[in-house]
């Protein structure tokens, strides 16, 4: 059953167009949003891996795990998959608890972390009801081998800045980290890494303030649900169930 009136090949083109329109608006007029269609997700975790590669995530840091759930009893068993990026909550408990104003809600909907200000107290990690934040302890994948490989020291570009891992002390090491909706890519007109790698086209991205955008249309679907809505966090990330 076609869930929305878009042909498969049109989806990405439309999202790219949506992005261009949104980027022409002033920042506070757009509100980035992600919609994940659980019926389309096959649980391949391509998004998880693409995210790790895009943001140079070290061991122990993950922005978008895909949680598997088995439903039913044999022979009527199904698997359901829940990719879990940051919800970019409109009322984010992580922001409220931060003692150093190191994390805040941007006008375009992204919850940003200033790695250079974050003291690494991990209060926000405990306060996030989705466990969307992880702690960067400064591990490398090539730890325990004769040499830490150079590619692990390459910078990530989160929030449009450069964050190299030259040593084990400088930020983002020692900080709380989380999904940024790949805002560094988005602001250059490129879709988030998870969106472009999703083999099932299960992840949509765009400006929810633009009624013509794909995400805005999907947000009006009767299948649209938010995760743990009862927490009152007003998540931006939305699931189609």
């Amino acid at each position, binding site marked *: 059953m076609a869930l929305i009136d878009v042909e498969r090949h049109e989806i990405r083109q439309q999202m790219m167009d949506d992005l261009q329109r949104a980027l022409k608006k002033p920042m506070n007029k757009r509100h980035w949003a992600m919609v994940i269609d659980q019926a389309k997700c096959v649980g391949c975790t391509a998004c998880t891996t693409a995210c790790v590669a895009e943001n140079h995530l070290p061991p122990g840091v993950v922005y978008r795990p895909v949680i598997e759930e088995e439903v039913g009893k044999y022979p009527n068993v199904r698997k359901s998959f829940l990719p879990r990026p940051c919800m970019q909550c409109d009322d984010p408990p992580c922001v409220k*608890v931060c003692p150093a104003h*190191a994390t805040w809600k941007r006008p375009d909907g992204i919850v940003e972390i200033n790695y250079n*200000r974050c003291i690494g107290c991990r209060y926000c990690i*405990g306060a996030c009801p989705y466990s969307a934040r992880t702690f960067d302890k400064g591990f490398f994948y090539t730890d325990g081998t004769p040499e830490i490989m150079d590619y692990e020291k390459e910078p990530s570009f989160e929030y449009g800045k450069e964050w190299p891992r030259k040593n084990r002390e400088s930020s983002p090491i020692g*900080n709380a980290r989380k999904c940024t909706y790949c805002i560094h890519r988005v602001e250059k007109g490129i879709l988030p890494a998870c969106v472009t790698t999703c083999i099932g086209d299960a992840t949509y991205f765009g400006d929810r303030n633009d009624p013509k955008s794909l995400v805005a249309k999907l947000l009006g679907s009767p299948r649209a649900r938010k995760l743990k809505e009862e927490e009152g966090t007003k998540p931006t990330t939305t699931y189609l169930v």
Partner: protein
Amino acid sequence: MKSTIKILVWVLAVIGFGVGLYGMFLRITTGDRLADYGSYIPWGLWVAFYIYFIGLSAGSFLLSTLVYVARIEKLEKIGKLALFTAFGCLIAALLSIWMDLGHMARVGNVLLHMNLDSMMSWMGILYSSYFGIIIIELWFALRGDLVETAKTGRGGSKALARLLSFGSTDDSAAARAADHAKLRVLGIIGVPLAIAFHGGVGALFGVIQARPHWNTPLMPITFLIGALASGGALLTAVVYIWGPDESKEKLNDIMKFLGQIVLALVLFDFLLEISEFLIGLYSVAPAERLPLEAILHGHFWYVFWIVHFLFGVVIPVIILFAKAVPKGRPDKPAGGAIAFACLLVAVTFIAVRFNIVIPAQINPEIPGLQYAFGGPGLKYTYLPTAMEWLVSIWVTSFAVLLFLIGEKLLPIVKSEHREVA
């Protein structure tokens, strides 16, 4: 007996300091990598030690106000000791939480970029004020004796006293009376401050809606009662060992009085605990149940049953009932037993703090999250590592040494002068 204990504490503190240094070395050189807390259980042993010590500090500080504000004559000579104990515990608490930061050098951001929505920022403000009050109070409490030691003392104590008296030279009775008037005012300011900051630590956990085990309005109250019980118990043990040389009867009297206070507080704290367990276990929601079940019959059941329940409640309560409550026979020495019971309460209270911090975090916020992606810290189990223990041992030993040295060099325990006017 007392001098043997004193020597034993010295020896333990020196060994702890030395051994703990290795942990500090590892903490400085390897950051958080050798610690077991991580992303899904972000807070571990050091946070538990932090609330443990800050509770001890708040408790003994609040008891010091019995001397300076309520002016209970019986306790007149232990005011300074209470303040100094509170000071030592405050240092240990601040060091514990400082070690826990991913960026220790940025601790100032808590004040520099303060967020008044964050209980942690409030902690920054309240601790700074408390630190200030305690230092000023200690100074006024010691001033008269410092001036006197500067005039009549010998050696290191004399030099230190001269330095610390900051040019003050008047140790007349009138000047001391003026000091006590100031102490009363400071104590009156200190009471709401101590209630605010320790209730505030409870609130720091209580406001975390994502962790139902913490998210209860009773949290600040539980923290305060726990602070009074553990801090009071510590102070009682300290008074017995380092307190002023009193006649046997008088010491017995003081110990019984303090012992009764501690007994009442331990029982009240236990009542709160029972209420928390009964209500929580009635629930069928895993987020409510799991932490309590983990406490009662998880891997670390003995932390609750043996360390806390047996050694922290049952045994001390029996001893205190037997020794601190009976009237009559004031000649029968009870101090040692009361001090022992209180020491048990104070030391085992770390188990209570541990069970507040860790179990609340073991319930996955999204079921199955731990299987979705693996890596260090992406798990819902926690066992403090050797490095974490060593750091906590160092911090504890450091504070104990600070106390021991201060007690030796400063006129903390001087019996000649009345503190209650």
